């Protein structure tokens, strides 16, 4: 009976605590909680159900009281008295009248929940007060506030930079809870301080990051590269906001900058949601995304599902006729796939290793083709050998494709950098511009992506600055005051195509023409097609902008764009409709490691001309050939006079055919200059792997590199730009 005695003592001290309990006395509540826990733990097994239940109910009530969720302490003394009563019954071994205590148990449970609703309501009101406060545009700052804010800025930035370092550590050691906790702490403190300083956006974002890390800490979420990316993005946004506070403080005000934190918060929330569903996207979300079902229908169905109709969401939707059974099957398939995506494992590899791999596979392909062309093999009648050869062929080409794809990265990141740019540009120019992107998953060579950034920035600037009109002008033209810039990427016939389109005013061909004449870029009486006129904007020193803004319109830009794209062996075209908009189309080779070229023979030598620069090849009529003073040779190709370039003059390699009408000429274009190359023969079109000529041949002008051909011999790849300079053809 020692046990009962002990509990009796507990109950007595509990009653003592209750007597002078106030809602503020946290310590007393702590004592009560400890006593109640002891009672629960030491409670004899034969104790009545009501006794245990009452003890638990009281503890629940005190906990809520502690947390400030409820305030009424009146009921407690009655509850404790009841506990004493039951205890006395138990001591005496009586078993009657326990039902009378049911009521107080229910009241403890119910009363608390009702009041907590009230408390919630209250806190909601508090929240809305907070929001109202936050929308006060600017607060005047006391010197103390400024000190605080400055400290906050420097300390938060420091904390964020440790987050970055820690994230890298975490990638190597994903289960290190100490690292996770340290990242958590950084966000946690930023959240705490920003909340105190009324920096609501920072507070919110930090709060979401904290939640994410909290889930990681508890093992609910695995931090993979995807999550790390989100966190890093969030860190970037936080840094930006903190920096704008820093700037604001200098001007004596508080401003978090007008960064919209909703998208990133939405993304963070989406990861937490995705992981909740065992790594799969919710079905409803997929259906809506696919455009199969309305959000309204899905919401309805979800409601129904919640109401307890034990049916699958898809089934409800099909029965309601919102979607067809086939739609459902497709969506379910997608869902399974989306679930699988998350478990793709990744390994980080040094790019150098990757380059070597691609290089070696290039060699392998060549060796394999040498093997195929080997005389002994070609003349062999062995069926088995041919089978093995074709199998080898298949394997090498798959290998080559895989190796190439390893160097590929989605263009999404580059696209996403444009979002900020468009926003800033639009804001600076007082325009309203929306950026729409598609094909972000399109993959492109890692080396190309970096080079592509600057030209894209130029073109997007061009679209926003010169293309999109002011909201007033748009409205006057009967357009939506908000302009749209589209970024698209897709693969087309072995090229990657990137389009930058706007629905602005379009290019003004008359003005371009006028300007070009004014600048002396073309003759006064030149007749040009529209597309030729548009191409004029790629000429150096050309700009039609009437005003010079700080971002674009200085007359540099588009020629640089064209040069950089051509450096990547790509080309850029313009389509434009006056009043409707302009579209820049960039075509790029999938990779820089392979070049699509035309193999030509000149005497005993073979050269590769990049297909991109070739206009056409032809055998000219004797009448189309003219020579000026017996020196400058010209060929008329489709009513255009093009200088003839002989390899003899540049490389001292003589052609078998001395006259153009005996051989062939290949008309090429480089930087807007067109000229013809005299060759003996066109051997065919080939994709070759480019090899650098190495440092000892650095000075050899006119070549982009070398390539090993199928027969094992080397052909040189011509560099059209250098060739153009060497020949002096550009001077015409």
């Amino acid at each position, binding site marked *: 009976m020692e046990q009962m005695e002990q509990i009796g003592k507990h109950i007595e001290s509990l009653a003592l605590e209750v007597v002078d309990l106030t809602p*503020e*006395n*946290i*310590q007393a*509540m*702590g*004592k009560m*909680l*400890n006593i109640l*826990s002891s009672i629960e733990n030491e409670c004899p097994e034969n104790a009545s159900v009501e006794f245990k239940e009452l003890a638990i109910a009281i503890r629940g009530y005190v*906990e809520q009281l*502690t*947390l400030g969720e409820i305030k009424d302490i009146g009921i407690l003394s009655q509850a404790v008295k009841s506990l004493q009563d039951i205890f006395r019954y138990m001591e005496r071994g009586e078993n009657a009248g326990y039902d009378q205590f049911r009521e107080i148990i229910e009241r403890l449970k119910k009363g608390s929940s009702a009041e907590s609703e009230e408390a919630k309501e209250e806190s909601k009101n508090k929240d809305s007060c907070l929001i109202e406060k936050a929308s006060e545009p600017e607060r005047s700052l006391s010197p*103390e506030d400024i*000190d*605080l804010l400055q*400290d*906050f800025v420097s*300390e*938060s930035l420091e*904390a964020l930079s440790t987050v970055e370092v820690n994230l890298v550590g975490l990638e190597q050691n994903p289960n290190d809870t100490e690292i996770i*906790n*340290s990242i*958590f*702490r950084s966000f*946690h*403190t930023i*959240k*705490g*301080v*920003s*909340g*105190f*300083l009324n920096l609501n956006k920072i*507070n919110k974002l930090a709060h979401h990051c*904290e939640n994410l890390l909290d889930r990681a800490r508890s093992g609910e979420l695995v931090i993979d590269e995807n999550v790390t990316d989100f966190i890093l993005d969030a860190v970037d946004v936080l840094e930006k906001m903190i920096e704008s506070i820093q700037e604001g403080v200098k001007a004596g005000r508080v401003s978090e900058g007008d960064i919209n934190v909703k998208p990133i918060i939405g993304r963070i929330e989406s990861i937490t949601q995705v992981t909740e569903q065992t790594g799969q996207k919710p079905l409803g979300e997929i259906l809506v995304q696919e455009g199969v079902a309305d959000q309204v229908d899905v919401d309805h169905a979800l409601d129904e599902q919640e109401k307890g109709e034990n049916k699958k969401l898809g089934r409800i939707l099909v029965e309601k006729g919102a979607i067809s059974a086939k739609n459902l099957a497709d969506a379910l398939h997608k869902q399974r796939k989306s679930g699988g995506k998350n478990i793709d494992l990744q390994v980080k590899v040094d790019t150098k290793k990757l380059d070597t791999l691609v290089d070696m596979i290039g060699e392998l392909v060549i060796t394999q083709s040498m093997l195929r062309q080997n005389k002994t093999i070609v003349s062999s009648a062995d069926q088995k050998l041919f089978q093995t050869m074709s199998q080898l062929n298949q394997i090498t080409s798959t290998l080559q494709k895989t190796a190439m794809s390893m160097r590929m990265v989605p263009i999404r990141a580059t696209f996403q950098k444009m979002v900020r740019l468009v926003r800033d540009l639009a804001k600076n120019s007082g325009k309203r511009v929306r950026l729409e992107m598609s094909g972000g998953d399109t993959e492109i060579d890692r080396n190309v992506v970096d080079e592509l950034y600057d030209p894209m920035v130029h073109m997007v600037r061009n679209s926003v600055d010169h293309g999109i009109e002011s909201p007033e002008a748009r409205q006057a033209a009967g357009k939506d005051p908000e302009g749209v810039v589209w970024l698209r990427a897709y693969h087309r016939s072995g090229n990657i195509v990137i389009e930058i389109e706007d629905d602005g005013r379009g290019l003004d061909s008359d003005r371009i023409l006028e300007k070009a004449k004014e600048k002396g870029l073309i003759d006064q009486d030149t007749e040009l097609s529209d597309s030729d006129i548009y191409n004029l904007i790629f000429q150096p020193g050309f700009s039609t902008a009437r005003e010079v803004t700080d971002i674009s319109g200085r007359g540099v830009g588009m020629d640089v764009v064209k040069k950089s794209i051509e450096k990547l062996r790509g080309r850029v075209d313009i389509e434009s409709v006056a009043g409707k908009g302009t579209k820049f189309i960039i075509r790029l080779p999938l990779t820089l490691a392979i070049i699509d070229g035309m193999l030509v023979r000149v005497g005993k030598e073979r050269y590769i001309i990049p297909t991109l620069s070739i206009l056409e090849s032809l055998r000219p009529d004797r009448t189309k050939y003219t020579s000026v003073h017996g020196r400058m040779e010209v060929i008329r190709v489709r009513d255009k006079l093009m200088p003839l370039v002989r390899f003899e003059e540049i490389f001292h390699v003589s052609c078998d055919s001395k006259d153009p009408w005996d051989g062939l000429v290949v008309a090429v274009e480089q930087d807007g200059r067109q000229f013809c190359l005299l060759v003996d023969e066109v051997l065919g079109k080939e994709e070759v792997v480019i090899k650098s000529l190495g440092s000892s041949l650095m000075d050899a002008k006119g070549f982009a590199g070398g390539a090993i051909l199928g027969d094992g011999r080397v052909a040189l790849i011509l560099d059209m730009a250098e060739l153009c300079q060497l020949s002096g053809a550009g001077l015409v």
Partner: protein
Amino acid sequence: MNLSITILVVDDFATMRRIVKGVLKKLGFRNIIEAENGKTALSKLKKEDVGLVISDWNMPEMTGLELLKAVKAEEKFKDLPFIMLTAEGQKDCVIEAVKAGVTNFIVKPFTPDTLKEKLNAVFS
């Protein structure tokens, strides 16, 4: 309220310490010392005559709860008022701290008024 007591503010984030200090100074307290985690807090407690501890929950080295338990374990500090700062949504932590004998707790983010209120509750 005795404004001449020494208050120990424990938080690993200096800005938070500064904020708390600022509020305390506004309320008229003059003697405020700081510690960046539970360990240094304990050693400072032993050296100085501290009249109140305000500590964060989540800190490296030694958490606020560990500090609280260590403080309460010493006869000398048994009645030393201890206010814990916790984050919202950490109800379990609050209950744990309360059971460990915390004098009061403040849920972050908080306003100067809340801190004042809690101080009044502690010293009344």
